[in-house]
């Protein structure tokens, strides 16, 4: 690395959240040091399914998701590549009667948001997406959603941050961070220390450890989404698919490969490595055949997993610490942080530079897990869960 170990902001974690935060801060002329244990964009951010959806999210996430979507629209200008982002629409599918109630309740709840959702019954499906299997009885369609290639997008955020002037230190494992007199001192395993008046916790599946250093105990459960890809086949399936309940997601890219996933692989202690499970691959393959029967004879050529952190209520933690001024969190994305990533970086940069953001994130604060402060807000997500179970479809996107 070059030179100084002092900056305006230190970011822990070089996933899409950390890199996007570093990029936005650098563009706002703040000096940033980003510390990444491995390489930027290679963990969950780089190996997720690649869905770019606003659809089917908890209400508390929607303003953030829509902010992110505006950034996605201009991605090439921001990071130098469009990352294969395509607006293909997203279908959320109902397989049983009770799913329809979930779709309807969400449809109503977000009607004011401007997502432009459409409600499709089976005859609409027959007309527009006749390749969907007979088990699909209804769907909602979000025409502004799409998909992108995470293994290109997430590392590109890191490279763009670097070009904008941020210092990215890869291979730097943070082992401790403390705050004293408004200065954060961050120590890495190689014996170096870094200092800044602001700290961003974007440590992914390991972010609960960082939060804990500052007295904020949020229990993260590792989530290990398992995804697979087929050989290329003629391009036929445009929209990204998800289901109520989140146990299957599906997309095809124009070069022909079908990418689909569901269920979870297994992670080793410490979550540094994960691996797919054959039983999950089998179940997911069966469900995918039910939803899109036309894929039955395609060959699967690869399966993989990544590790994210699940919060107790299924929505991420985004915003300032409740205990330590200058500390900001962006973690616990529960397997659906890829689309949000560019927006989270913009909002955290707003908060650090301006002390406020125009984007409403009041339901995503850490207070909902550690008590005090804005405790009742969490609840947007909670309430959504109560009135419409699994409104925030689990699983990677």
């Amino acid at each position: 690395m070059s030179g100084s170990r002092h900056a305006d902001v230190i970011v822990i974690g070089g996933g899409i959240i950390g890199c996007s935060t570093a990029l936005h801060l650098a563009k706002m002329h703040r000096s940033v040091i980003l510390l990444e244990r491995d390489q930027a964009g290679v963990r969950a951010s780089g190996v997720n399914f690649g869905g770019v959806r606003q659809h089917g999210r908890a209400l508390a996430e929607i303003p953030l998701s829509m902010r992110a979507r505006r950034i996605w629209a201009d991605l090439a200008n921001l990071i130098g590549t469009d990352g294969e982002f395509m607006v293909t629409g997203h279908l959320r599918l109902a397989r049983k009667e009770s799913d329809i109630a979930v779709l309807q309740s969400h449809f109503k709840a977000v009607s004011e948001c401007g997502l432009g959702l459409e409600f499709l019954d089976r005859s609409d499906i027959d007309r527009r997406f006749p390749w969907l299997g007979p088990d699909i009885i209804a769907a909602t369609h979000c025409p502004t959603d799409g998909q992108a290639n995470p293994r290109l997008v997430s590392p590109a955020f890191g490279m763009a941050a670097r070009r904008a002037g941020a210092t990215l230190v890869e291979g730097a494992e943070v082992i401790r961070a403390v705050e004293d007199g408004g200065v954060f001192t961050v120590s890495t395993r190689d014996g170096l220390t870094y200092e800044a008046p602001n700290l961003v916790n974007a440590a992914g599946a390991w972010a609960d450890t960082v939060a804990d250093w500052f007295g904020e105990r949020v229990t993260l459960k590792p989530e290990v989404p398992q995804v697979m890809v087929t050989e290329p086949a003629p391009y036929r399936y445009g929209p990204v698919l998800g289901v109520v309940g989140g146990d299957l997601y599906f997309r095809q890219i124009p070069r022909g490969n079908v990418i689909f996933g569901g269920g979870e692989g297994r992670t080793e202690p410490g979550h540094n490595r994960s691996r797919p499970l054959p039983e999950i691959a089998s179940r997911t393959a069966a469900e995918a055949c039910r939803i899109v029967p036309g894929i039955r004879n395609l060959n699967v050529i690869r399966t993989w997993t990544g590790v994210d952190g699940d919060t107790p209520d299924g929505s991420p933690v985004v915003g300032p610490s409740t205990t330590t001024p200058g500390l900001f969190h962006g973690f616990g994305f529960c397997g659906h942080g890829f689309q949000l990533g560019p927006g989270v970086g913009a909002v955290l940069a707003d908060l650090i530079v301006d002390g406020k953001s125009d984007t409403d994130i009041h339901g995503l604060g850490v207070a909902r897990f550690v008590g005090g402060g804005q405790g009742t807000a969490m609840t947007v997500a909670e309430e959504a869960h109560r009135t419409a179970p699994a409104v925030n479809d689990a699983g990677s996107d």
Partner: protein
Amino acid sequence: MSQPRIVIVGAGPAGVRAAERLVDHGFRPILLDEAPRVGGRIYQQAPEAAGFRRSAKALYGFEAGKAERLFATHERIRESIEHRAGALVFDVADDRLIALIEGKRHEIGFDRLILAPGAMDRVMPLPGWTLPGVFTLGAAQIALKHQGCAIGHHVAFLGAGPLLYLTAYQYAKAGVTVAAVVSSASLYSLAGNLLGLAAQPATAAKGMAYLAKLRSWGIPVIGAARPSRLLGRDTVEALEVLVDGRIRTTPCDAVALGYGLNSETQLAELCGARFAYDRDQQQWIPEIDAYGRSVGREGLYLAGDGAGIGGADAAELRGVLAAEAVLQDLDLPRRDDNADSALRQLTRWRQFRGALDRAFPFPRQLAKDLPDETILCRCENVTTGEVRSAADRGLREINRVKAATRLGMGRCQGRICGPAGAEVLAARLGVSVDSVGRLRAQPPIKPVPIAALAGAHE
């Protein structure tokens, strides 16, 4: 107490010998292999139902006796083993193999697992290598031994190593016109390793005999050649190489190429075996003890060319030793002591093999000089230049390059492009090839139809 479940993957020389030894000690191992009949690649047999018959002598040359003895062993034990032919093992859980058998997904539990999955050709691309008519040496052999046909009428052979001469010899014996046999290795490097090769004089002599035969038939046998390109419009029409700085063009309608073999290690990796880079073999191989016990995964044993290239004779010995290790680890009294003799013989094979590897090195300098526009990964159409530019952008590890370029992401999972891809990357970075890592194995290790994967869940 019920018998421990012992499963052997691979019914080549190693797998059959391991099965034999286990049967002789009262076990009933499960033997799985992709092919319909035993023999592995080296002693591959035509399908029983095929209407063609060639003698073992015609198919296997000097090795016919060994092939016939192996088949006889299989005949002797076939009632005492559970041989599942046509079984593609594509994934492994803790104590279960996941396999495709006759299009259906099966789970096969094991307490002890012997992996003997063999090896595959090691390829170095050159301009024109994706033209129709270009095959690996192994594929050319499969065509001959399994399918009863040749890859062309007028075939040029290009590469390095014993398989180059053997395959050319087999083709010539089968009546195919061999246009030329062109080696990137020099006779000088062969001479420099004569001492090591003398550790197996009979085998070394056989190699020389193949060479002499080819020459006596008037086939051009060229050494120390520098492959430059394959020419042709819709299909391959000529091989062009440089010899002593002069262009030499060999017209042909098919090319078989290969520079030695790579161990098939994907299952071992999914099992949790530890790997180390072997400088003689110029590849990553699973770490094992003298008997083939995996370092890093208890209950796993590796035998045959899947645990580092040793050839068919060594594979038989290693099959015996792997079975021996299983018996030892089960704490069973053993009837004979031929394991010690196998260990001693294997030591001599190792000396021979090391000399062979040094005599026929993987031509890494060719990777350095490959034109940017030459396709490196043929599954995903990734060019050499794309890999170099990934290196220039700061990517220093082969899996990162895979993520950025798609190298090794296709149907073959990098079996074909992986070794050359690592060489191209290392050459561009100016580092040794082991420091760029190795492509990770991912299930399914070979393509599996979605509906078959779904299995009982469907």
